[in-house]
């Protein structure tokens, strides 16, 4: 049993704890080639980390859609005020 565990740990290259800490770097494509190789090898053998990574990606995707809700556009009067200020500074220089 212990020998099997040893074998699996070797296949996984790094612990899940370590793999978790590499995930943001992975998503940023900023892993060193060594870490990249270890991380990929780990994911191939570890469904749990693969699921976690998918959930992390989904979290990022939904977070990036938060601001799609903002229908706010610069209102006319604000824009005209700003353009007036802009115009007057250009006239000064």
């Amino acid at each position, binding site marked *: 049993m212990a020998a099997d565990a040893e074998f699996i*740990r070797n296949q996984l290259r790094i612990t899940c*704890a370590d793999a*978790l800490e590499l995930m943001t770097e992975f998503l940023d494509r900023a892993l060193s080639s060594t870490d990249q190789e270890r991380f990929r090898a780990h994911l191939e053998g570890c469904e749990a980390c693969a699921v976690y990574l998918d959930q992390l990606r989904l979290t990022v995707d939904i977070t990036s859609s*938060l*601001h799609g809700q903002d229908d706010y*556009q610069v209102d006319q009067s604000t824009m005209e005020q700003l353009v007036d200020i802009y115009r007057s*500074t250009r006239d000064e220089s």
Partner: protein
Amino acid sequence: MGSVTILASEATSPAETTEKMVVDALRRGDEQVFRHLVEMHHTGLRRVAALYVPSNVVEDVVQETWMAVVRGIDRFEGRSSIKTWIYRILINQARKRGPKERRAIPFSALGPSEAHDPAVPLERLYHPELGTGYWPEAPPHWNADPGDRAVASEIRMVIERAIDRLSDAQREVITLRDVEGWDSEEVCDTLGISAVNQRVLLHRARTSVRAALEVYFHGS
């Protein structure tokens, strides 16, 4: 101050050429370009200002930012992008007004002052055969119906609340990276923090938000 003629051949990339053209146009008094700049950034500036000041002050801070931009455009040296420059002005203005205690530097430049929290509490990572540091089983899958708008809006609220509960530095970074969609270089440039610092903060922020979603889907 005389106008500056920029030769396209002096630029080293298409992006830099565009930047120089925009700066040049703004200095010349090109209102169309100015309007476009405002349309492009005003909403984002409001959201970022809201990290630092109460909502009734947001519009004032953003207006003051635009005023500083139009007054400062002749002196802008182009060492950073226009966007970075505008947001740095905003963050400075917001900090002067903010209800939070006065800081000389952005929250995240203070460094990861929080105690190190791993992405997943270590107690969850114990496999009966493999030992410490390994998942005993996969975390439960999330069944989210993407078509269900009520659920979608609840999920967004869970995320918003989770972001509100983060440390100031983590909230700053996840807002700029994930909510506003900036790349890491822009974030580091604007906040004046290292790439490593930025990534550590982002990692902690994202894993906390993910944990909040896990609770929403499956309970704690």
